[in-house]
């Protein structure tokens, strides 16, 4: 499941683990909507779980892509707490201009 190169079994160059900032890698899982499972969306570096969640929100849910995030270090799973959820994702709702539908496309303009 993990995309972490350190668990990689394939051939090729040996995995390098030099992490000069000392920030571990976290895998990020997002539940897109109520009723759907969390799915893997990517990874990021963060010094601890709290910052990993904050960074994951900024990085992977700028457009309300999710209602819940898990960040997973080597062994543990951490979920964003449900009661924080509304405030946690609120900033996306008032930034409608992040979606292409916000813009008026003049009559006849194609491929935009």
């Amino acid at each position: 499941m993990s995309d972490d190169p350190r668990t990689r079994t394939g051939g090729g160059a040996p995995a390098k683990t030099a992490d000069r900032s000392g920030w571990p890698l976290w895998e990020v899982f997002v539940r897109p909507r109520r009723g759907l499972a969390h799915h893997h969306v990517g990874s990021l570096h963060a010094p601890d779980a709290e910052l990993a969640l904050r960074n994951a929100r900024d990085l992977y849910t700028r457009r309300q892509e999710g209602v819940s995030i898990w960040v997973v270090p080597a062994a543990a799973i951490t979920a964003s707490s449900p009661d924080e959820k509304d405030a946690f994702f609120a900033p996306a709702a008032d930034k409608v201009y992040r979606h292409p539908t916000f813009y008026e496309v003049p009559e006849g303009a194609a491929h935009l």
Partner: protein
Amino acid sequence: MSGCNTCSVHGHHFPEPGDGPASGLLGQVEAAEAALRAAAERGRPGAPDGAAGDTDPQEYFTALIEADQKIEPRDWMPDAYRRTLIRQIAQHAHSEIIGMQPEGNWITRAPSLKRKAILLAKVQDEAGHGLYLYAAAETLGVSRDELVELLLAGRQKYSSIFNYPTLTWADVGAIGWLVDGAAIVNQVPLCRCSYGPYARAMIRICKEESFHQRQGYEILYTLAHGTPAQREMAQDAVNRWWYPSLAMFGPPDRDSTHSEQSMAWKIKRFSNDELRQRFVDMCVPQAEILGLRIPDPELRWNPERQSYDFTPPDYAELMRVISGDGPCNRQRMARRRRAHAEGAWVREAAAAYAAKRAARATAPTEVAA
């Protein structure tokens, strides 16, 4: 054979000018996403997914590529495939990061609160794109820190386009329309790249790029329909950004060194010249609607080719800019180095704080004593 077959089934179709926005670039990204799911469900014919069994790893790798299946981080892959991907994804990530600078210059000077908020969101997206891509590169066994060091040492490149200056507000419009537009034409086929983490990152990125292109187009449209001075500013921006945007597709096919192998590995799906042509054919009708002129006296419709003939960019200039001698190379690198150095204490402090809390959590009695 199976590759060609799949092409015709899923169709690497770019709509002709005149197709509505709904069937445009976003439609192609969604088609790529659907194809990715379909391939995952189909699996590799005659083999349980993921299990290489006792087959030769090279053969298995080739069979996966042939069957349009994705290569995933834990799969065996040829060293050259891994190196090619690391180089390409890193260069792409660096471009997103450096690419924040030309537009970031205008955040404080945006003409309205609305435009300022939009530009902030766009520049934030570009930072996000850089991070998605560094994460994809890391699945190949390099660390982000290594890649950042290679960029800062000038040993890895970023797109030449970001070495041009943004002189007026209209440049922000021209970047959105032309630079993000060219990036999308380049990147939509990468949504079908054979390496899974890269393809998935590109799907995410392309969906966001659509807003970037439209906001730029809207800026130019507004200026082009404003006062004569605003109109002139818009035209001037298009004049300056047109050829550097054409150069974003890289050297002409005859000089392109990495293309053939990348095509065979299905990392790259179309040649530089094909994509450049596609971009020109897309822009001409868009420019007409803007009421702005594309600065190319040779530009004309060729009914035989069903495409526009156009003047290619100055490839000698492209090579000069790539090798470090563009108008803003030094400024861009100096700014990135300074930002990285000035952020060092934040990274260190956060790591120290996390270490201290971890130590307290594991050894509470020692802390109390």
